[in-house]
């Protein structure tokens, strides 16, 4: 039991980040409203960033900006760089997602995916 507790205390940050990820994941796959899907995706994405940044953290370390003191411990700068890139790419894909939502609203007059499925079924029936 104590080894389980040790494992949890050693990695609690990762477990909580996974809980956050799954809230975002559920919003993406369970909810029919497309704006809500995008917000879920945003939460999912930010949680993945937290996982990466957590891996770069060193206890007693400081931000990777050189102080000139040789004894200073710096946290790992590499995940920070990767996540900087990922944040900017993330907002670019978010913009495309919202553009598609606006376009879907123009064509179908709704952004709920079950309504859109009904509309498309009606259309195929009309065609037959």
């Amino acid at each position, binding site marked *: 039991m104590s080894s389980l507790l040790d494992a949890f205390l050693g990695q609690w940050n990762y477990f909580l980040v996974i809980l956050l990820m799954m809230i975002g994941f559920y919003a993406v*796959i369970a909810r029919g409203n497309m704006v*809500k899907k995008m917000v879920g995706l945003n939460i999912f994405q930010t949680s993945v960033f937290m996982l990466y*940044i957590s891996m770069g953290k060193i206890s007693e370390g400081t931000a990777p900006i*050189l102080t000139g003191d040789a004894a200073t411990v710096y946290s790992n700068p590499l995940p920070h760089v990767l996540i900087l890139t990922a944040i*900017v790419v993330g907002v*670019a894909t978010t*913009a495309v997602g919202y*553009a598609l939502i606006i376009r879907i609203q123009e064509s179908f007059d709704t952004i709920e995916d079950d309504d859109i499925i009904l509309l498309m079924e009606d259309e195929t029936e009309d065609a037959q």
Partner: protein
Amino acid sequence: MSGFVVNAVLIFFLVLIAFLALRLHRLFAMVMLSGAFSLVAAALFVVLDAVDVAFTEAAVGAGISTVLALATLSLVPVEEKPHKVAIIPAFIALTTGVLLALAVTDLPKFGAADAPIHNYVAPDFISGSENDIGVPNVVTSVLASYRGYDTLGETVVIFTAAIAVLLIIGGWTRDRRRVSKQAEDDHAG
């Protein structure tokens, strides 16, 4: 220990905000919560020593993303249709979460200085930054110089996204779309 407490409180807030955003049916309030989520996440990044990531997240995640979402909300319905809890997606999310949690137990302990990630190229970047690039901020020198090609790739992605957005909702295709919509309405009428 104080770092542990600050971290735990911030992540607790994040879970609370994410849960509320999932529950709300008013999309405007939900988008605002999403902005708040990014802001608290930025605070967490400061605690985790990632100051550059923190201000990018605050500017881009809490700022630009929220503006994009609000611009979208001005064109679409702002109320979500009521719905039930979906069992199958909840089960999938739960299973994925359990599997990830099991996988995470194989990672080195949080904050360990001897983790493999800290012993590969990162020490070279930290020790070389001053002489090779001459910038005290190691993140800047890795971003712009050591891994400059990644940043070039990033700008290509942003350029592609900008073109995609313009093609989807830009002025070039609007007239044609209006004509086809008109024809469709005439047909239906």
